[in-house]
């Protein structure tokens, strides 16, 4: 039997990557090829002798450039460049979710601190200000009043990355002291966990703990639609419970899952490797993101 050559793109070996490597090495039909992005030198004619690449890169920009260059060849990528591009940008994610009819919190986008302040006051306090490219709850700010807004906007305007001059302002969703992290792999919501915290941010990186969350038909349906909207193959979906039902506030491509493992019965690393093998064997058509712009017919349909 021909072995599936599985590349895993990474730069830091977290518990997740260790478990994935362990799982891949157990398989007789898989040859694991770790790809450390810190050692990568990519050319314009990149033809990796691999069947599939699983992106576990912690840096969004590295992941995007590596996937972009790998995708010129025949190698399958999990997730695709397009999905990582959309999922890694909260503005794009909000818009594609909204346009696909997936419930998602209201947001406003502004580009200067002055217009951002106007947008914040239009939504009404409290609001949540997020970096469009952030993770782990980094630089997320719950803003309660005008004084706080002015101080935070002023500081944010001085951060160096271009991305910090996109002001992504989200209505504050009143939720119980928990939110939901669900995992979608290969068109199935394979498990979910509540992330519980006294803090409004429930990220595991900030000390949120997890307890099991049943995958109801409502949760499953929303997660699958969110996954499809961003063109994902194996992603995590973050949801909040509101009086009007569930709302999706984020999707994550090279997702962390160590904090959820105790609350989810299924073996996430094993399912990820299973999916990569299946994708490499060509059972999956390469999913296309719903993000297609610059196309006249589409523009007309929207008009």
């Amino acid at each position: 039997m021909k072995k599936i050559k599985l590349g895993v793109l990474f730069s830091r070996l977290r518990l997740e990557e260790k478990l994935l490597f362990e799982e891949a090495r157990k398989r007789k039909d898989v040859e694991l090829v770790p790809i450390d992005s810190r050692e990568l030198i990519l050319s314009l004619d990149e033809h990796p002798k691999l069947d599939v690449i699983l992106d576990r890169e912690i840096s969004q920009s590295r992941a995007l450039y590596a996937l972009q260059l790998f995708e010129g060849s025949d190698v399958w990528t999990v997730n695709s460049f397009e999905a990582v591009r959309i999922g890694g940008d909260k503005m794009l994610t909000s818009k594609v979710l909204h346009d696909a009819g997936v419930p998602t919190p209201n947001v406003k986008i502004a580009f200067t601190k002055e217009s951002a302040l106007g947008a914040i006051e239009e939504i009404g306090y409290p609001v949540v200000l997020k970096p469009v490219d952030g993770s782990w709850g980094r630089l997320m700010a719950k803003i309660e009043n005008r004084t706080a807004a002015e101080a935070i906007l002023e500081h944010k305007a001085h951060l160096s990355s271009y991305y910090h001059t996109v002001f992504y302002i989200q209505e504050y969703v009143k939720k119980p002291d928990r939110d939901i992290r669900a995992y979608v792999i290969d068109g199935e919501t394979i498990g979910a966990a509540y992330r519980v915290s006294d803090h409004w941010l429930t990220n595991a990186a900030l000390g949120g703990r997890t307890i099991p969350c049943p995958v109801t038909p409502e949760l499953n349906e929303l997660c699958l639609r969110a996954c499809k909207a961003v063109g994902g193959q194996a992603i995590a979906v973050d949801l909040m419970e509101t009086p009007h039902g569930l709302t999706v506030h984020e999707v994550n491509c090279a997702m962390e899952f160590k904090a959820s493992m105790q609350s989810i019965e299924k073996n996430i690393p094993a399912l990820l490797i299973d999916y990569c093998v299946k994708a490499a064997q060509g059972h999956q058509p390469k999913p296309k993101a719903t993000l297609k712009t610059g196309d006249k017919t589409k523009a007309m349909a929207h008009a």
Partner: protein
Amino acid sequence: MLNLGLLCTQIKLEEKLLMEEASRRVHNVIKADMRDLVFDLENYFPFDVVLARDFMHPRDLSALFLFERAGIRTVNSYDVARRCSDKVAVSKLLRQHEVPTPDVLIAFTQESALQAMDKLGYPVILKPAVGTWGQLLAKVNDRESAEALLEHKDHLGSYYHSIFYMQKYITKPGRDIQALVVGDEVICAIYRVGKHWITHPDRGATIKNCPVTKELETLCLRAANVVGGGVLSIDLMETKDGLTVHEVNSVGEFRHMLEPTGVNIPEKILSYVEKVTVHV
């Protein structure tokens, strides 16, 4: 008549000329300044088309994306502007579609970037993956300067500076070529002649008209097509093996091309904008 949104933060000569031309064609020009714009998930804008004039940093692209999603035609389109704002994407697309383009290596750390430069052989051009013409471009002549530069770059902060884009240095005959493509036409081209390795008017380059030969035309149209087409500026170099395309950008400044070429560039751009706009 079109409701034409002009997306720009500054009215320079180019914008003035475009606005004059638009008025001549009785369009309603509405200036849209990124600094005043606020988008939500369901916007309405009073534009039929938006002509983006600012250099599209990643953040500015959000605006084009949201305009398009609101059903407005944009020139250039979001996807084209997005590709053009990223040198890796442009190089990759050119190579993938067999348009001659210099060799490029991409690395993500100082150590691997240094190895990559050794591999390409000096001199090497180190470019920011995202950036405007001439900014932070560096010709790296040897390993010592490579080491010093990489260390400085590492301290620049923006995460785009941790994407190392390294291009093989091409010896050119003291000049390069800039051509403008509007839709399916190469409307004009110039030689930029100068002693500095960056042949740019800001670095003292002089401008001469460059005849649009069949070879130049074919190559420029192919280069424009691979990024998705639109209003594009193509930079080319003459090598012993023929022309090679080193950059494709959304058209920004063009004042330096007006007199030497005698082409009415605003007229060409506006007539293209009319052609691609879906009349509502």
